[in-house]
């Protein structure tokens, strides 16, 4: 029996299942008569698809069907959360290497794969757009359009398809060219790589169409969004589609919105049999990614160190389809000034189509790309102006209540508290680095728009024995949503955690939740759940008042019971009093949203996520290898709901950030991914991670979530790149403007230094 975690908190509610192998993921599910799908994928980055020759595949052992776009003409076989520009199977044109062209279904996965390899697709090649520069001047646009809106994400797109622009987003205030006296002006272009989310579980979906209803089990982060797309594709009511997400083996955005579910669904629809599609990791790596971006940054400082103006012009490579690109570039621009109060700004971002796999959401969408160059400038300014880097940042922090952007949520946290914690956690008494190494420290502050959609609903059922079951659809990706939601109920109802059950991640058995991402579950789903609990408490109070013959106002409900002057009853007694015998149950309901509900301020974000950090980085002067030896991550959580989960999110985000800073990059040649495995795409391993990660958090109780909490999970990935590259500059004097900065890059930079550092 395990009592508590070492920090004294209760263990994650899924911990024992996950250490014993009992936890079920989509790939672990089996249905009677289940068939297996494999995909025929485009080998061309941009081409007309002329024919699909599949007679050999159809005759291969175990093969049941080969499905192409022509088989889907009775359906509406398009998807996309923002615009419906993505065909389920390529129709007349393929737009990236790896785009699904046909589905081969067989009795075993191996037979499906073997047959897929002998399907022959005819292509007539079209001009390839392999970079953002060539996209803007391409003779042949990748998309002709126009497309219908996807209708799931409420964002109006501003495309220019002739120039391969999927969306443009601009914000401005004041005159950035009106320079103050003695201004320090910094101009640089910063490049951020395309990276893969690399959740350890590749995308998997299992669909069963029975002629009336569609059931899908999937690795989907947002089952309700997938349900809506599947219903439209098959012409069904929402009530006719169930999407269920069991445990998900990591998401980080790669499994957001709709990804492979339509492929499994249409195969099941064609065959009237259950069909599973399980991607290989190589296939997963061409299913989603983070946008690579080129970001021009101008920063204008007064001689006193005030950040006076910022110009950011950013070009994001969104790949072959829109996916969540428009939302990504919009959120990205928050990071162009936040967390600083800047008088004038001119911000302009475009999402550009190229013939590469579609880029979509990844942890803190768009933000690391824009943030790191901006924070590099802040550090550079501190040096040029002779001001301590923390002090310069302190002078510029936006105060609570300040609107960084008109009509958007004002700063809702006390940023100075986080900076104080960061400063206190620095360690200036470390041993000097070993001979042949140099060490530097870099800091960076971030504040990102978080929360995503305001729409969540939740139920809580109180059973006849006083135990409860929570129904909340947030999916468990590893972030600990199931633990956090149960902890909220434990705290509010005074029940032990063993008496709080949870049903999650299933559109049939839990009520609507728009999405799981954007650090929103504790804050937004949690708030809907607290409203459900309040609804339940109101009912309990009324029942207790009736039982005790007192006014409701004199009833207290807490710690597992109701009390009133002269009497008390536990929850089971109250349910029994309501129903008259040992049966029945009470149901509480909660909902957050925009519209009439107006739970949060309009304009967004729902809250600001605060992340501040410092990296101590050592560089080996012989090899160029950089190692983060000590990292401090500070966040503002508002209130602690489950401490170990907070730390886990922070440490994970830090190491993920080390990946895009020092090693990870998806490389394409003529649209073909040439880094398709861990040998060529280096995800940080245990020896790459800092041996010492210090985490601390502000808990001022001022967040918009339950008990004053404020979501975290994404923010800590944002300041990593700037912290490390600022440290590299202080250690070596190298100015990094392109990520990742690899060991080889650093070795060359050291060789090129005008005065080589002392070895």
């Amino acid at each position: 029996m395990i009592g508590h975690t070492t920090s004294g908190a209760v263990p994650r509610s899924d911990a024992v299942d996950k250490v014993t192998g009992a936890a079920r993921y989509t790939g672990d599910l089996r249905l009677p008569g289940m068939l297996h799908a494999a995909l025929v994928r485009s080998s061309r980055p941009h081409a007309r698809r002329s024919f699909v020759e599949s007679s050999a595949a159809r005759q291969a052992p175990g093969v049941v069907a080969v499905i192409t776009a022509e088989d889907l003409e009775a359906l509406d076989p398009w998807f996309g959360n923002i615009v419906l520009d993505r065909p389920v199977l390529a129709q007349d044109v393929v737009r990236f290497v790896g785009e699904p062209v046909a589905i081969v279904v067989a009795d075993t996965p191996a037979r499906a794969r073997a047959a897929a390899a002998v399907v022959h697709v005819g292509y007539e090649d079209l001009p390839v757009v392999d970079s953002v520069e060539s996209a803007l001047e391409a003779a042949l646009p990748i998309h002709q359009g126009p497309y219908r809106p996807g209708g799931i994400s409420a964002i109006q797109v501003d495309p220019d398809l002739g120039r391969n622009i999927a969306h443009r987003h601009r914000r401005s205030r004041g005159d950035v060219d009106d320079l103050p006296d003695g201004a320090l002006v910094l101009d640089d272009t910063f490049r951020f790589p395309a990276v893969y989310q690399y959740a350890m579980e590749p995308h998997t979906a299992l669909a069963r169409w029975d002629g009336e209803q569609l059931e899908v089990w999937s690795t989907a982060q947002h089952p309700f969004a997938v349900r809506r797309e599947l219903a439209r594709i098959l012409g069904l009511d929402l009530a006719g589609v169930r999407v269920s997400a069991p445990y998900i083996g990591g998401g980080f955005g790669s499994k957001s919105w709709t990804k492979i579910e339509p492929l499994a669904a249409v195969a099941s629809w064609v065959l009237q049999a259950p069909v599973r599609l399980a991607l290989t990791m190589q296939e997963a790596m061409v299913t989603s990614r983070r946008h690579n971006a080129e970001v021009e940054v101008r920063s204008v400082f007064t001689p006193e160190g005030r950040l006076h103006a910022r110009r950011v012009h950013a070009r994001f490579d969104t790949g072959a389809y829109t996916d969540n690109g428009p939302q990504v570039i919009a959120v990205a621009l928050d990071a162009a000034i936040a967390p600083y109060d800047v008088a004038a700004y001119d911000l302009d971002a475009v999402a550009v189509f190229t013939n590469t796999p579609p880029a979509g959401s990844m942890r803190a969408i768009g933000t690391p790309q824009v943030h790191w160059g901006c924070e590099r400038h802040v550090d550079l300014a501190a040096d040029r102006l002779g001001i301590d880097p923390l002090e310069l940042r302190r002078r510029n922090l936006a105060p609570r209540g300040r609107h960084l952007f008109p009509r958007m949520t004002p700063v809702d946290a006390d940023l100075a508290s986080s900076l104080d914690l960061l400063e206190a956690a620095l360690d200036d008494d470390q041993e000097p680095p070993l001979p042949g190494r140099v060490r530097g420290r870099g800091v960076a502050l971030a504040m990102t728009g978080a929360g995503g959609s305001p729409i969540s609903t939740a139920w809580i059922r109180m059973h006849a024995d006083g135990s409860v079951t929570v129904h909340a659809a947030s999916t468990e990706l590893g972030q600990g949503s199931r633990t956090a939601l149960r902890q909220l109920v434990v705290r509010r109802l005074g029940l032990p955690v063993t008496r709080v059950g949870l049903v999650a991640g299933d559109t049939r058995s839990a009520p609507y939740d728009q999405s799981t991402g954007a650090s929103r579950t504790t804050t937004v789903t949690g708030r809907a759940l607290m409203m459900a609990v309040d609804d339940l408490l109101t009912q309990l109070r009324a029942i207790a008042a009736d039982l005790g013959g007192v006014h409701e106002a004199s009833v207290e409900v807490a710690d597992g019971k109701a009390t009133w002057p002269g009497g008390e009853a536990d929850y089971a007694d109250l349910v029994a009093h309501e129903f008259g015998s040992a049966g029945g149950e009470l149901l509480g309901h909660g909902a957050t949203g925009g519209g009439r509900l107006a739970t949060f301020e309009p304009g967004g974000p729902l809250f600001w996520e605060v992340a501040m950090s410092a990296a101590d980085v050592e560089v080996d002067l012989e090899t160029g290898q950089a190692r983060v030896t000590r990292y401090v991550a500070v966040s503002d959580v508002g209130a602690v709901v489950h401490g170990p989960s907070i730390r886990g999110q922070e440490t994970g985000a830090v190491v993920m950030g080390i990946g895009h800073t020092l090693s990870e990059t998806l490389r394409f040649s003529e649209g073909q991914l040439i880094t398709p495995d861990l040998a060529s795409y280096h995800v940080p391993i245990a020896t790459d991670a800092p041996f010492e990660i210090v985490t601390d958090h502000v808990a001022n109780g001022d967040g918009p979530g339950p008990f004053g909490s404020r979501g975290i999970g994404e923010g800590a990935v944002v300041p990593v790149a700037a912290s490390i590259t600022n440290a590299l500059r202080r250690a070596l004097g190298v100015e990094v403007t392109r990520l990742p900065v690899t060991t080889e890059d650093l070795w060359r930079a050291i060789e090129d230094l005008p005065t080589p550092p002392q070895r």
Partner: protein
Amino acid sequence: MIPDTNDQIEVSVRVNGIEHHLTVDAGTTTLELLRDELLLTGTKLSCGEQRCGVCTVLVDGRPISACTYLAYELRGTEVLTIEGLASDGELDTLQTTFVEENALQCGFCTPGMIMTARALLNDIERPTERQIRSALSGNICRCTGYDAIVRAVASARDREAP
């Protein structure tokens, strides 16, 4: 002798203490045998090319990648998977410390991570932090940043070899 991939091969193997007599295709992997034949789905498939460590199980006490280790090579061996680690309802020390240290999030790498750590602690009585990280360097975790995992292994070490 290396069999032809179409050959059917008889395999007798003990898995988590239970003797199995199976007939497998020569190309069947250990992972397919475990997951599809024996329905032991605790061991997961991730990269499929022996690089990420997610599918690690112990064969005669040695960690192997089940995704590429052919099932016929298991003849006469003793296989231990995550399902067989707890005995008589008692969790293994590592399972306990992984829970206590919150050393898991999505859980997909967890079975392989624990099996690799089990092999380490069986081999070396008191590994240093550096040795622990080094032993785990073939097991990728994208969620935790490894921090809690290293603590959990160190904590199990201290409990087993104080």
